[in-house]
Structure formats: C-alpha cells, structure tokens
C-alpha cells in the first residue's frame, strides 16, 4: 500500500513542475489544476514502482504534457462544436483558441515579476501558437515531432511558432513601453 505521507511529500516535490507544464500548454489555471490532479492520480496508481525511479520527473512531465494535449483536443474541440460562432477556417486546428476572454485566467494582473509576466503573456497567446511554441522551447521537440504530435503540417508548425514569437515580442514591447511610461523597471530586453 502507498504510504500517504510519502505520497504527499512526492506531490509537494513535483506539484509545481506538473502544474507549470500543464499551465503552459493550457493557459488556464483551472484546467491545469484538473490535469495536474489526473497526473497525480496516475502516479498514485504506480507509486510503488515509480517513487524511487531516477526518471520519475521526466515521466511526470510526459504524462502532464500528454494529458494536456488530450484535454485540448477532446474537451475544447467538443466545446467548440456547440459554441463557436465564427465561420470555419481552413487554418484552424484542434488547438484553435476559442475560449472567451472572460474564461481566461488573467495572470497578467498578478504577474509582477519578470518571469510571471512572461508566463502571463504566454498564457494569453492563442492556443494554436502557444502549444507548438511551448513544445519547441520547453520540451525541446523538433518541428517534425511537433507536427507529428499535433497532427498538423510542418509548414503550419513553423508558421504558428513564428507568429507566436512575434506575438510575444509585441506584447513584451508594449509592456516595456508601458513600464517606461510609468517609470517602472523594464523586465525584458527585446
């Protein structure tokens, strides 16, 4: 049987990493927490075999990533079917961002530090730009691997990543200008 205290210590050690992995892909706190919960439930089922494994962090990260991608594909695609008001667009993917602005987590309001600001800008990107960007930079996947994982064309992966970077740069520039205007320290050099 799993020792509850050991499992709690295990969760404390990895909760930030698991939550951050999900948060970066999903861009939504509530959904990221749901996914993190599911990840730890799976870890609980295998706790005896994984608890001392040297690659348990990698395993948790992979499960978080896969569950987040599943979440994006299944839940949002299903939700979109009944709620989307826009006309169909051939450029759309299952990761098209269709969450209403009010449903988003407004992380920029609480992001006072440099890293928090970047995380909030990342969360505000449309999912179709954020997901490949995160997979490329945080998970160090190649364009081909991303295309395979997201089941989209290589060209689209490159375009979305490029647009995501441009979008990020624009937000950072705007933020820097606003900070300068208010006499605040500029967090990121673009």
């Amino acid at each position, binding site marked *: *049987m799993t020792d*509850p205290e050991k499992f*709690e210590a295990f*969760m*404390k050690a990895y*909760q*930030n*990493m*698991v*939550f*951050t992995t999900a*948060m970066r892909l999903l861009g939504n*706190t509530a959904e990221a*927490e749901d996914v*993190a*919960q599911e990840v*730890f*439930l799976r870890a*609980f*089922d*295998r706790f005896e075999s994984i608890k001392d494994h040297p690659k348990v962090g990698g395993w948790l990260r992979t499960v978080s990533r896969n569950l987040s991608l599943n979440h994006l594909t299944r839940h949002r695609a299903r939700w979109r*079917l*009944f*709620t989307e*008001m826009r006309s169909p667009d051939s450029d759309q993917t299952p990761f098209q961002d269709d969450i209403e602005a009010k449903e988003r987590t407004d992380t920029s309001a609480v992001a006072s530090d440099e*890293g*928090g600001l*970047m*995380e909030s800008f990342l969360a505000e990107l449309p999912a179709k730009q954020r997901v490949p960007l995160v997979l490329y*930079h*945080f998970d160090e996947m190649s364009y081909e691997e991303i295309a395979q994982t997201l089941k989209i064309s290589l060209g689209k992966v*490159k375009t979305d*990543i*490029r647009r995501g*970077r*441009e979008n*990020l*740069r624009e937000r950072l520039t705007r933020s820097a200008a606003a900070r300068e205007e208010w006499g605040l320290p500029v967090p*990121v050099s673009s």
Partner: protein
Amino acid sequence: MSSFDMEEHESSGRDAADKVLDQYFRALSDTEAPASLIPRVQAAIAARALRPWWQQSYQSWNHKTRTLVLSVAGGMLLLLSWLLPIYLPAISGGGGFGLMTPYSSSLEPLWAVAMLLVGSLQAFLSQVPATVYYLVAAIIWVGYLLAVGTGVFLCRLVQLQKAR
C-alpha cells in the same frame, strides 16, 4: 529582417531568436501550484478508496486479489475449453440436450421454440437483399447527422439571441 524571423535560418538549426527565447524560457522558474491541488488529489484518492474493489482500477488491487481473479478467470477459460468441444456438438447437431443435466427434458420445448425463431429469422434475413442493409445504414447515419446538426443549429441560434 526582424530578430524573430527565422525563415532564413532554418538550415542552420535554431537561430538567434530561438536562442534568446530558449535562454529566457529556461531561466523561468516553475509557477507555484495552487494550494488546493494536494487536498484535491487526496480527496480524489480517498473517494476512490471508498469504492468497492471491483470498481477500482486493476492496478490498485492488492496482489492476493489479482492472483485470485486471474486464477478464477484462467480456471473458467480452461473449463470452457474442456466443456465446449463435448457439449457444443451435442447442442447444435445432436438434437438438443442429450448430454446435459437432468433438466434437459424440461428445457426441450423451450429449445425447440428458440431454434424455430432463430431459423425463421435466419430465413427472413437471407431473403433481404444487401441494398436494403445499406439503405438502413444510410438512413441511420443521416438521422445521426441530422440530430447533431439540429442540436448545433439550435445551440448557435440561442447563443446568437443571447449575444443580441
């Protein structure tokens, strides 16, 4: 060319913009998980533990239960593989329940009725041309699409009216 434009650098791997972003992203520390996460997981584990063992996942069963269930399932498979060759010919071709239990005589009329029904159904289905099957399948499929389409249409209509 903007510093984030990577089109001309694809052949040489990650470009300068890649590296800047990479360095920046790697320097980012993890976001703190909500304080509610661990209590939520613990509550979910407790709720799962309250369920009877057969409703829990196989991986959460203890070794004794796993061994017992596997043994019983294996035993039943062995028993079936031993019994079927004996009884199946007797049931299907041997004219009923000849080799089966003392109840066989009382079940004989039921068996005859069942065989009559199956025979009639078989004869009827063999008369139906294949196109009818395709037609029925097409009707079911179109009906399904219509139901989904109507649902989507009504949902969007409601959304549109709310938006106004």
